[in-house]
């Protein structure tokens, strides 16, 4: 039985999926589906909101709204790309913002706030990275639990305060330079780091097949740890932007960013199991799609229930199209 069965010729691929030559159109559809999704939704709401969604006022606010999800999602591409599943982004962002706000209120200096945000976020990133890389544990469930843990720590850090307002910071008249600056720097940095450095390539390979990556001389543990540090960096940038823009932090900061980035990455066409098909662009396209969707629905004034129902249906539709190119015989787990 030894040689014939292990043939890789036409017949069975290792995971039992019937291997059919992938028609180029299916591959192309898979790659372009996210952009198609974004285009579709943009035109849909262009019509429904009689062009108001892309009017001068709203265009700038669209970038504001997309920013936080895009920043955190960009860092998450490294973590999900390396095959680790992180559901604790809300908790991480919340704790980072609270500590940053406390430091800003105590010292009144933006520099101190920035340092505090980066330090706390990197610390959280290291803890998660070590757990993912060195400890044998169902990491998926652990991140949910860690998310709750970090949120609770944030609450404890708040103490009696309910909302921290940083009056010391000067009111920044126009946030756009900061928004665009941070968005551009994170994405350019992300593109270079993910596509042109050994870290990025290692993330994709580890996500694709961890054993094969280890046998190609890639330090799997170091890759996972670094992926979490990059993600922590973008979380700290997001926290800083939030504090600069709103001057407030509370136990509810970062509210739904945990699920928003997952929705964004999936709408951006990135498989949540990671691997070579991970793209930094998925974070940008996905965040844009979800923002246009939310903004469009809000502008139509459809009321909270209808908005969320519509978002659920659109989400499943776009995800189905994005994953058309990857069908397995066994139900995915």
């Amino acid at each position, binding site marked *: 039985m030894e040689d014939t069965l292990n043939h890789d010729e036409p017949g069975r691929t290792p995971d039992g999926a019937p291997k059919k030559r992938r028609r180029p159109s299916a591959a192309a559809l898979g790659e372009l589906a996210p952009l198609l999704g974004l285009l579709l939704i943009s035109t849909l709401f262009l019509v429904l909101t009689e062009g108001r*969604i892309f009017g001068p006022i709203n265009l700038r606010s669209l970038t504001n709204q997309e920013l936080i999800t895009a920043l955190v999602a960009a860092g998450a591409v490294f973590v999900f790309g390396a095959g680790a599943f992180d559901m604790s982004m809300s908790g991480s962002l919340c704790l980072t913002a609270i500590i940053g706000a406390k430091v800003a209120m105590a010292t009144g200096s933006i520099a101190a706030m920035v340092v505090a945000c980066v330090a706390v976020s990197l610390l959280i990133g290291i803890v998660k990275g070590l757990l993912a890389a060195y400890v044998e544990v169902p990491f998926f469930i652990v991140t949910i639990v860690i998310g709750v843990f970090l949120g609770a720590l944030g609450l404890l850090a708040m103490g009696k305060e309910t*909302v921290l307002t940083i009056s010391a910071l000067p009111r920044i008249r126009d946030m756009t330079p900061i928004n665009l600056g941070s968005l551009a720097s994170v994405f350019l940095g992300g593109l270079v780091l993910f596509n042109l450095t050994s870290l990025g390539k290692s993330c994709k390979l580890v996500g694709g097949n961890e054993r094969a990556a280890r046998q190609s001389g890639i330090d799997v543990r170091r890759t996972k740890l670094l992926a979490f540090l990059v993600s922590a960096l973008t979380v700290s940038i997001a926290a800083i932007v939030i504090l600069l823009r709103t001057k407030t932090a*509370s136990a509810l900061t970062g509210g739904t960013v945990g699920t928003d980035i997952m929705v964004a990455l999936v709408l951006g066409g990135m498989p949540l199991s990671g691997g070579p098909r991970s793209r930094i662009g998925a974070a940008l396209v996905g965040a844009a799609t979800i923002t246009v969707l939310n903004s469009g629905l809000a502008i139509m004034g459809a009321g909270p229930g209808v908005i969320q129902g519509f978002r659920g249906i659109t989400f499943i539709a776009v995800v189905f199209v994005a994953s058309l190119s990857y069908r397995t015989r066994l139900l995915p787990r």
Partner: protein
Amino acid sequence: MKKAACAIALIATVAGMSAFGQAKYAADGRYPAKTIKIGVETFDPSDGGYMGVQSYLKSLSKGIFNVEFIFSERIDSAEQELQFIENCAAAGAKGIIAYYNVSKGQAVAKAAELKMFYWGTAEEKDIYDQYKANPYFLGSVILGNGDHDGMYGVTKALLAEGKTKFVYANGGADFGITMFVNRRLGFQDAINEAKAKGARITATEVPGFPNEAWFAAQGAALAGDIDAVVSSFGPEVWIQPITAAGKARAVTIGSFGAIGPSTVDLFKGMYASGLFSAIATEPTERFGIAVAMIVNAAEGNAAALKKNGEATREAESLWVITNPQDLAKIVDFELGAGRTAYSKDLTKLVKSIDPSAGNATLLDLIKGFSLETIRAKK
């Protein structure tokens, strides 16, 4: 100097708009002819009190004002609040009614920047002082410190009934939500006042919102020797447990609550079964005033209602209902014939409809929904 110059310029443009301000009604008799969009911001769309406001505003938009509301989804963080305001601007809204505010002055500044009239958060003195001159800040009708006074009034009513052993459901106080922290302060002030007068009062807290831990805390509290429950987020989740614990007569409930179609017969039933002592409820009519003020401001006549050019900051106390009679009167005012009459009066605030509209009209309307006025009605 710079501030004053830009204020004058704004008033000029706004005044210019009102040059042709004679009253124009839409086909169906609602005012004004062109639909005005108003954004309504809340922290939790399924909150009982907010749903009462929502149904009141919808009734206004059917009969009286040609307005369309953009109701927000759940808003946790300052980020989401600013995003909602930006979306309303994009939708062409003329005004924002803030049922909830987390980013304090940022929200007012953002609305003004996007040329929308902001109604709300005047109770926070520092924000009010900072923006009272801004033409886009309409201020608000404040219920004093509504949250604090509501719980304070309810606890006082229970103390007056001789209650001494309290359980307090603090809702979101431990989660740092300002509204619930103020409500807890109101409760504690009333209790401490009674203790200062020598009364022996015990008070245990049930933290958070219903989940397994809450069931345990509620059960432990109800098992103890208690005679009163004060809830900061609605009485519904206490009625069944108290009856189940066999303490229907012994323990009475004081709570925040919303007078609405789905809760009226519930409250009447509770009074009948001796379960209820006091309900603190925020009159939804102040949001009717808000709609009228925004419609008026959208036509450039905001200044007419202002006292020496400053945004409105009038206080009126919220309703603390302590007996079935008051409840019946309030219900008639809130839901029955009283509502249609009051809604009609609101149009007096719109200068184009009633040229004599002024600060006095505003004060009369505010007085119009005070508990004393309602009680005085037959």
